[in-house]
């Protein structure tokens, strides 16, 4: 669906080290792929390479049909299929009103006014912000701005949505409701997600597969296995998550059967304790 083949990238400030070299990554259709690692470990660089906002120094990004050509047309095709949403929504909101901002992508795709309008309405509905349509962007709360930025990417109807730290800066209730919205979007439109995060517990709970990145791939595989491996996490300068530690403790205490999955949120643990 989307892959990086032998990717390496060097930021051109004089003679600096490459962020990573010959990195291979594959994104499977319909999955949530979590990308975790320390700051400066290459997460954002990888997301930008995959979305075509940086051009790899060596290697190539490939879609289902083959490698993306490094020319205008190839890049344009990649951007229609893969959309990156930045961490800070203010970097993506540059129009005065919400609907106007969300229409930016569809209009650039060359859609006619009527079609673009439908797209905007659909994207706003998908993000649950239809009632914000004619609000000025600068009067929205941070969480609302994050949703508008997401709607702007969703309106292009990409197959892959790449989210850089989607939950950063949100309060716990905001995180929950955004996760719900994204899950609904995944269910209704089959969108594939690539999500970078610092929150190991979030990745343990939400991601199907994860990639641990620290100037190269430190580990990759199913979230439940990789994120339970304390050594791999340490190699990626991450800290253990609660989920796997709790499952292990419960198993050791005979409170959880060997094959049974452990709780992934404190609520679930509390429910099980009472039940």
């Amino acid at each position: 669906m989307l892959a990086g083949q032998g990717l390496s990238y060097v930021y051109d400030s004089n003679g600096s080290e490459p962020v990573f070299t010959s990195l291979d990554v594959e994104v499977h259709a319909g999955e949530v792929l979590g990308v975790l690692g320390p700051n400066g470990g290459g997460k954002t660089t990888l997301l930008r390479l995959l979305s075509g906002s940086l051009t790899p120094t060596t290697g190539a990004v490939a879609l289902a049909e083959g490698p993306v050509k490094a020319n205008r047309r190839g890049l344009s095709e990649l951007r229609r299929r893969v959309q990156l949403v930045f961490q800070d929504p203010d970097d993506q909101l540059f129009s005065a009103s919400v609907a106007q901002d969300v229409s930016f992508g569809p209009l650039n795709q060359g859609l006619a006014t009527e079609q673009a309008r439908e797209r905007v309405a659909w994207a706003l509905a998908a993000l649950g912000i239809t009632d914000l349509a004619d609000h000025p962007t600068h009067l929205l709360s941070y969480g609302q701005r994050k949703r508008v930025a997401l709607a702007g990417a969703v309106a292009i109807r990409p197959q892959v949505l790449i989210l850089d730290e989607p939950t950063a800066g949100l309060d716990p209730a905001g995180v929950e409701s955004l996760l719900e919205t994204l899950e609904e979007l995944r269910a209704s439109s089959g969108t594939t997600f690539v999500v970078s995060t610092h929150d190991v517990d979030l990745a343990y709970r939400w991601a199907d597969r994860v990639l641990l990145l620290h100037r190269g791939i430190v580990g990759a595989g199913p979230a439940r296995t990789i994120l339970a491996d304390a050594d791999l996490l340490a190699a990626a300068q991450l800290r253990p998550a609660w989920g796997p530690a709790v499952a292990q403790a419960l198993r050791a205490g005979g409170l959880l059967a060997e094959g049974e999955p452990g709780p992934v949120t404190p609520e679930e643990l509390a429910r099980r304790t009472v039940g």
Partner: protein
Amino acid sequence: MLRIDAAAYRSPWRRLHPAVKATFCGGLAVCALALPPWPGAAITALVVLVAAFGPARVAPRTFARSARAPLLFILTGAATLLVSVGGPEGLVAWAPGGWQRAAEISGRAAAALSCQLLFAFTTPLAEVLPRLVRLGLPPALVEVTSLIYRMLFVILDTAHRVHTAQAGRLGHETWRSWIRSVGSLGAAIFVRSFDRARRMQQGLAGRGYTGDLTVLVDATPLRAASVAVAALPPLLVAAIALTWRMMG
């Protein structure tokens, strides 16, 4: 983020007093502009490049990349000297002695440019700006200039990200969409710039800001001997070039 700026902070000449580097680079720039271009500009350029790639350890590739755009500008300008217009030989004709004149002027300008680049590549602005007060510039002007220097990196970063986001949302596909993108980028950075100013004002109020941005500036002593030493190469270049002319 900005190539020259980043290199200046890593320069082995960073600790030299800015006035010493200004004497050295400025003196050589005067040589480039005032001496007869041959051999004055040539020797000046040679000395600057040796100093840059030798003791100042400027990366030649970075230096060349920074020189490319201004050199192109110099060459375009010099190219016009090759032709003359409205003469007896028709509307446009090769100018008599045009090649020589163009070469002289590009040589001078290129030599002066390398002097300026050497200074920029070895002298972080953060160390020059607070000292400008001692040159008699109004403190308010110097403080505003320092603030611009600090804030431009924050705004540049924003502009860069907004630009990337617009490209990602297909904002540079057509000529029309590109103009719309740059326009909204300009508006976005205007709003963000003033938001930054407002937030910084709140941030500084708690730290006791009452109108003066007083800070401690490291007292790098300026020794007359260092300035004299820095003035030596330019004087030497001038002497050699003038002797050469008299001999030739």
